Structures are given as C-alpha cells and as structure tokens.
C-alpha cells in the first residue's frame, strides 16, 4: 500500500472530494477540476492498484517491451503531493455509506466526503469454462497482468489468447514479440468484429498470421485443461491447443458492485445523466463504469469527454453536459494500420463506397447515409481516418464528392473536391501518383507515353509502360487516363466482367487466384479489388468453384456461396420441396436398393417416383426437414448421393453391353460403373454427364454427352463436348484408344482440363466451341506427359472430394446441426 498524504493546508473549511479509482477517467476528471478551480476541494483518491496513475492504453507496448512502466506513468507521486491530493493506492474502497457520507477502504480507513466521484472502471469478463481459475490463466487489464504475462513468456512456450478483439490481438502480438508461440481463439467469424467489417478483419488476420500469430475464428472454448497449471485449451469441436499461458480477453464489464451495494441505480453500468450525476446527487461517476443514455464505453476518448464535464461540474461551472460520444478505434500494433469509426454495419438507407488497392494492401470502406458519412473502416492506409472521423462528427453533406471521397483529404484539398466524375478525378491526380502498384508506374509515365507514342488502346499502353500488365487491377484507372487524353476518340475495351462486382473476367480471376495464391473468397475480393463488400449471387458461387479447383484439399467449401441445391445436396422444386436422387452406378440397381427406395417413399409420403434420363430413380416432393431421414435410410441400403443437384459428375449411362447384348463388343456396364466410381463427387464448372455404349449402335447415346465412350471391335472411340438440352450438340471425336486403362486416363485428364480451363457455368460444348478441339487435343492427346499429369491432378483432387455429403448430414450434428431445422415457432 502506498499512501501520499498531507495536512490539509487551509483547514477543514473546504468541501471534501473523494475519488474511488485512480485510473485514467478518475484522474483526468481531477485534472480538469484542478485546471478550472485549483484548491477548491480537499481531494482523496483511492486506487485498487498499488501504484500511481498510468496510461492503461499503453499496456500493449509495455508487454511488447517497447515501453517501460516509467514511460507510461501519467502522474507521478510528486504530482499528487504538489496538488495536495491524498492517495491511497493498493487500498480499494469496500463500501460507501451514503447516509453518513463516507467511504470505507479495505485497510479500515474511513474518509468522509461532500462529493463522491466513482471511477471504478471495468473488469475483464471471465468465461466460466472449466479450468478458468487454473494458475496460468490471466487477464489483460493492468500492470500486474502484464507482469504475469512477462513472467510466463520468459520461459517461451505456447500461449493462447481467448478473444480476438482489440485487447486480445494486442496481447497476442505482445506475447509473440516476447518469443511465445501464440494462438488467438475468436468466437466470431472474423477478428475485431465490433470494430472491423469482414473484409478488414480478414486482412488483419492475414497480417497476424504473417507475423506468426495463429488465428482460429469460430473457435468456441470448451475447457481449459490442466491439473495444477494450464496445459491446453480444448475447443468444442475437440481441437486441443497446448498452452502454458492463457489470456482471457473476451471483453470488459463495468465495475458496478460498489455502487450497486450502496443503492445507487445500476443497470449495465452505473446510470448517470448528462452531467455525470448518479441517482444520488452527491455522487458522480465517470469512465468505463458508467452507463450514459444506455451506452457503456470502453475506449479512452469518451472517458476524457466525460471527465471534462465532471471537472466543470465539480468546479461549479456551466457546462452543456455530456451528449455521448461517436467513437473511433485504432489498433495499437506497430506496423498494422487499422482504423474504424462510427457505424459501418450498413443498414436501411445506407450506401457503401469501397476502395481496395491490392498492391498496397489497402481496404477502405465508407458508409454513407443521406449523403453523410456514417461510418468508416480503413485498413492499410489510415492517413485519412481523422478526416473521415471529422466529416462523420460534423455530419457534413458529402454527396457532391461521393465518388472521390476515398481518394482522401489531400486530393480534396488539391481541388478534387466537387469533382464528381472519377475520370476527372484520375485526371486531377498529380503526375507522381502511382497508378500501377505492381509495376510501379506513375501517372506521368502513362500520360507521357500516350502523348509521345499516340497510344489509343489499353493494350498499347500496357505494352509500352507495363502498367496494368500484371494483376490488371488498375485497368479502370488507365481507361480513365486514356479517356481523359483522347476525349471522345476513346472507346473503352470490351472486357466481359464476371459480374458488376468486379472489372475482372473469369479467366483473369482464375489466373490470379493461382498467381497470387489467393485462398479464400475475402482474399480474392481484396486482391482483385471487388467493388462490393461481399459480392453477389453470380460471383460468389464462381469464386467458390475456382478456389475449390485451384486448391483441392486446402480450400474449405463456403456453404453460404453455394446455390441452395449444392448447399442442401438436393434439388429444390417449384413448391419449395426437394427431390432426392441416389446414385446407381452405371445405371444398375438391385432388389435391396429398390426395396429401400420403396420403403423410404412409403415412410415419408414421397408423392412421386420417376425414372430419370440418366438411368436412376428420382424421389420428388421430399420436405426439407425429412431430407436427413431419407438419406439415412438410403445410406443404410448402401446408396450415396447422386449429385443430381450439382455442377459435378452426374451420371454414367450405359447400355447392357457384351455382358448381355448379342451385338455387344465390350463390357459397357462394368466400364461405366468403374468410370463412375472414379469420377463421382467431383466438382466441375457445370454438370458433367458421361455414357458408355458397348458397340457402335450406341444405345447409351454416348455421342451427346460431355464425355462419351463407344466401344468398337478394336477398342474405344472417345467423344467429347456433346449435350442435349436447348441447343443440341453432337460430340467431337477426340481419339481412339485400345484399353480400358486408357479410357480411364482420358476421362480423368479431360475432366481435369475442363475443370481447370472452362469458365464457371460453361458446359463442355460451348467451352470446346470457344477454345477449339485442337486445343484440347494438343493438351491431352498429343502430349502424353501432360495427359498423365492432368489425370494425376484429377485423382488427387478426388481424394479430397469423394465423401458422401448425405452421410455427413444424415445425422445432423456439428456444422450441419441447424441446416434442416427451423429456428423457432411462434404463435
């Protein structure tokens, strides 16, 4: 316990002010009071921590070692003495006697008051999982916590930080820089979800991973394991992460117990009015412990705004009171620039302006409402954060410059303000402004090249300057420059963008996913500078497929970006029911399967059974909630999903072949079955159908399939690129082969080539018409090495995708637990 005390210089005449809490809010209020009315009160401060007042915001630099305790002290012992303040540090107040107007401290010290200021701050939320009280579990709120963390870090080892909010991430980076192996567990889907939107959260997590901090989102802690000390953290999904130190940083809760026990009104925090007065007029409260107009704050800036009101109020001066704060946040991690302010969650009547610069790793999003800035999220370049925050607080109408707002304050100051046209905005950029981040090409270089060489097209500019020749993200800016230089003489090139969310076409997106090793939908959207926060129903399924195709076994399928059929593994019908088609390998079935189908149709009142064109049976009219039961029954009879709903391998149709037919030359049924066994479960750009005919009579109609096999006396004719449908196309003859092994290899190679080359939702017929049969032949007929490589890649990706989606959902649990249930029923 530290006591700094003084004989009262002017005797007992002065009113006595007692401050409970020696933190940032309480002491700032005292400072404000002393500024305005020095010597007005006889001041006593109680602090629970045994030290002088310090800057709590600086705990993370203290942890990382960038600062020492003396660096973060705000007011040293001399300050208390000089201002005649009695400090009881390390002696928390245990009760308030409002009738007797005095406080009682732990040590037994009693101090009477005329005015009382409660500034007890907030405490960490401890999630009550088993093991939360084990030694080695700490919080991150004060210097003692930091000392414990530093002691633990001294031994190296692994730390787990529970909570990926502002505080948790700062703790994680601090511990990592102290040499610990750090994992952050975060319950929500992206880190700092209260301050950042999903895109910025994703970028931040990527940066942390680059620094060696592992981030697991959607992580629900089940237990902290250990006997006499923390040993590991176990998640609800069974994952166990070893840890010798666990930091709980899941949130804060106002410290209100003292006030509540004294009978002061408390809800989430201590309730105060605009003048920071509690339900007892003699008692004021300030800081994180209060609740003002329903809000509790956990950031420093509102605390200071409150403290100002408290200071004026105690000094007996006029004040407009506290009207609540609009807050902004910056993450205090060296080298990571993150800023957010206001409400960026969108909402009715709001619009988004999104800017992404993949080259510099920048993401900016402004949310406007009625032409006014309502919220901002900045990542990578936060220089204009203060400006947007000021626009936000001022409530200024910015509609006249909405298109150029994201260019920043410097641009606006340079006369860009009022320029509503982005082409003019590009024109207004200075000559040294970088247009192409990949190749470091400035605006001046491009305009000079256009003028000197009389360039008129984007391609010419690309060839001459290399700008936009890599990722192509700056193509839009370059078009703007060309349009400005050539005026009406310029016609923008026709690149068919995937959708209105992007300027990129399918092919460049595929290429860049590989070239830039982009491995998630948010990563693609950032790197390729998507113009919407989360895409649309056209681009999201396409990206999901391209990522699956590019990173088999690594990319995790994103259900929310799947069309309903592929998400629920059944075909939606016009009335909202579903159809279920179990696989019948090569179109063959048996009594056991047929009985199971009959039984399940009876049990679930399935109204229609239909034989499909692909030689199997469709159960139509199944209710969504019945799907798991139907699947379980079909699974029990040995049947799996037929993927009749997917952009995937559908069926391999066969004729009876040499097994039965008097004309048959090859065993088409068994070849068909083995081809289906090899290819089922594969995702393709569009549906993919095959057929095997046992002789040239071609009863399986193999020449209008995506891949058709027609047996001949000497072997097999292989056909590709056919389909029925609206525009019938007969197959092209790809080549002739002699063995069944070759048939398998060609099928695998062709499916892989199609998967790697065709655009999403492009069937083999239009794909082959677009690229030409010669292209396909050159890649997989003439080039045996490449054929083998394609086939090997196909088999590799199959090893990751051949699991029955029905079996995974037949007993819904884990991630599918809610897929088939309604959320609630109401009267």
């Amino acid at each position: 316990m530290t006591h700094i005390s003084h004989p009262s210089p002017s005797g007992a005449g002065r009113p006595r002010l007692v401050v409970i809490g020696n933190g940032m809010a309480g002491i700032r209020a005292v400072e404000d009071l002393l500024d305005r009315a020095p010597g007005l009160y006889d001041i006593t401060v109680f602090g629970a921590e045994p030290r002088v007042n310090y800057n709590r915001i600086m705990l993370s630099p203290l942890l990382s070692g960038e600062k020492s305790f003396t660096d973060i002290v705000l007011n040293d012992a001399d300050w208390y003495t000089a201002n005649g303040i009695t400090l009881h540090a390390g002696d928390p107040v245990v009760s308030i006697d409002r009738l007797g107007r005095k406080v009682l401290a732990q040590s037994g010290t009693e101090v009477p008051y005329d005015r009382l200021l409660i500034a007890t701050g907030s405490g960490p939320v401890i999630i009550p999982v088993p093991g939360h009280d084990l030694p080695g579990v700490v919080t991150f709120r004060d210097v003692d916590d930091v000392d414990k963390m530093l002691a633990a870090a001294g031994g190296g080892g692994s730390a787990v930080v529970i909570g990926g909010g502002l505080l948790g991430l700062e703790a994680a980076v601090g511990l990592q820089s102290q040499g610990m192996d750090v994992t952050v567990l975060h319950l929500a889907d992206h880190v700092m979800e209260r301050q950042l939107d999903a895109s910025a959260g994703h970028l931040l997590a990527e940066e942390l991973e680059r620094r060696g901090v592992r981030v697991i989102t959607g992580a629900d802690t089940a237990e902290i394991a250990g006997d006499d000390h923390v040993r590991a953290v176990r998640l609800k999904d069974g994952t166990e992460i070893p840890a010798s130190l666990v930091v709980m940083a899941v949130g804060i809760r106002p410290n209100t117990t003292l006030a509540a026990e004294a009978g002061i009104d408390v809800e989430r925090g201590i309730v105060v009015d605009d003048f920071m007065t509690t339900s007892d007029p003699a008692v004021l409260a300030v800081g994180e412990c209060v609740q003002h107009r329903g809000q509790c704050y956990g950031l420093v800036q509102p605390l200071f705004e409150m403290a100002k009101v408290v200071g004026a109020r105690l000094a007996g001066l006029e004040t407009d009171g506290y009207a609540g704060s609009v807050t902004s946040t910056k993450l205090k991690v060296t080298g990571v620039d993150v800023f957010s302010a206001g409400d960026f969650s969108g909402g009715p009547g709001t619009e988004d302006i999104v800017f992404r610069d993949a080259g510099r790793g920048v993401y900016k999003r402004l949310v406007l409402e009625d032409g006014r800035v309502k919220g901002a999220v900045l990542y990578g370049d936060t220089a204009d954060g203060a400006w947007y925050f000021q626009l936000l607080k001022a409530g200024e109408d910015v509609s006249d410059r909405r298109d150029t707002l994201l260019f920043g304050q410097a641009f606006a100051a340079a006369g860009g303000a009022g320029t509503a046209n982005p082409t003019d905005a590009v024109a207004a950029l200075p000559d040294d402004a970088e247009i192409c981040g990949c190749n470091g090409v400035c605006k001046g270089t491009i305009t000079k090249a256009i003028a000197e060489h009389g360039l008129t097209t984007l391609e010419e500019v690309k060839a001459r300057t290399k700008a936009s020749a890599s990722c192509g993200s700056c193509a839009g800016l370059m078009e703007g420059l060309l349009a400005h230089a050539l005026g009406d003489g310029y016609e923008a090139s026709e690149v068919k963008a995937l959708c209105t969310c992007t300027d990129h076409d399918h092919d460049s997106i595929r290429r860049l996913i590989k070239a830039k090793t982009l491995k998630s939908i948010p990563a693609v959207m950032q790197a390729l500078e998507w113009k919407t926060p989360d895409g649309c129903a056209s681009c999201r399924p396409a990206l999901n497929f391209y990522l699956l195709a590019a990173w088999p076994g690594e990319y995790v399928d994103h259900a929310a970006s799947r069309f309903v059929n592929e998400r629920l593994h059944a075909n939606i019908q016009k009335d909202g029911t579903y159809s279920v088609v179990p696989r019948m390998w090569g179109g063959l079935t048996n009594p056991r399967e047929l009985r199971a189908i009959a039984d399940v149709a009876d049990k679930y009142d399935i109204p229609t059974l239909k034989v499909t064109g692909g030689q199997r049976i469709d159960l139509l009219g199944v209710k969504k909630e019945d799907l798991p039961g139907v699947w379980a029954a079909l699974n029990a009879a040995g049947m799996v999903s037929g993927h009749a709903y997917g952009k995937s391998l559908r069926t391999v149709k066969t004729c009876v072949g040499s097994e039965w037919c008097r004309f048959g030359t090859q065993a088409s049924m068994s070849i068909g079955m083995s081809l289906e066994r090899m290819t089922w479960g594969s995702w393709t750009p569009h549906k993919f159908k095959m057929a095997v005919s046992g002789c040239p009579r071609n009863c399986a109609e193999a020449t209008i399939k995506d891949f058709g096999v027609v047996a001949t006396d000497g072997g097999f004719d292989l056909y590709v690129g056919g389909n029925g449908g609206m525009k019938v196309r007969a197959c092209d003859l790809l080549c002739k082969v002699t063995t069944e092994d070759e048939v398998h290899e060609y099928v695998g190679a062709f499916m892989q080539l199609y998967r790697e080359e065709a655009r999403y939702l492009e069937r083999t017929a239009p794909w082959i018409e677009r690229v030409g049969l010669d292209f396909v032949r050159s890649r997989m007929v003439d080039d045996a090495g490449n054929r083998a490589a394609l086939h090997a890649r196909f088999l590799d990706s199959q090893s990751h995708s051949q699991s029955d989606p029905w079996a995974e959902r037949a007993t819904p649990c884990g991630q599918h637990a809610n897929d088939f249930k309604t959320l609630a029923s109401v009267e």
Partner: protein
Amino acid sequence: MDQIITWTDIGPLTDIPRQGARTVEHPAGRIAVFRTIDDQVFALRDACPHKQGPLSEGIVHGQAVTCPLHNWVIDLVSGQATGPDEGCTGTIPARLEDGRVVLGLVPWREGAAHG
C-alpha cells in the same frame, strides 16, 4: 393503423449462418430471418413475390437475397424486387438485442404482409 407489435426473441444470432438465413414458423406463414456479412438481421415473409420461392434458401449478398427459383433479387430492407423485376414481399421488423434476434410480430392479417 393501430397494430400491437410483440417483440419476440427467436434465438441467438449465432444460430443463423452468416450470409445465410433460418426460418421461423408463424401461423400465417413461414418467416425468413437473414443474417448479413456484417451481422445485421432482417426478416421477410419466406416467399418470393414472383413464384413464392423460399427466399430463406437464397444466396445473401450485401443487403439483398437472390431467390433460388428464378434469381429475383429481393432487397432485405424493403422486401422490394430490385432491377427490372417488380414485386414486394412482406417485411417483419427485426433487431438484435445482446446477441439475440428479436422479431416485431403483429397479429397477422391476410394480405397485410404484401406491403
């Protein structure tokens, strides 16, 4: 119009997949409750104004959902079809309270939802 709104807790936000939806059974018809990428919640009658497709099964993007039957894009805020299509489905007030989804339900009148 004097309608009595009953704010009804239907469950935690985390039970709705992000960029997805869940349904709530109501005597007058199924309600689709959507969760956007930014954790906003919206509720619509679970029927597209076009052919009554279940909007709850659509892909959620921004503040819109694309109907799984014929790709109509419905604004989650207004229930209005966007783009060239015309039509509107009923909206139900929805809000978040301490991580729980709360719907403002009114005694259902036939046709009242088609506003």
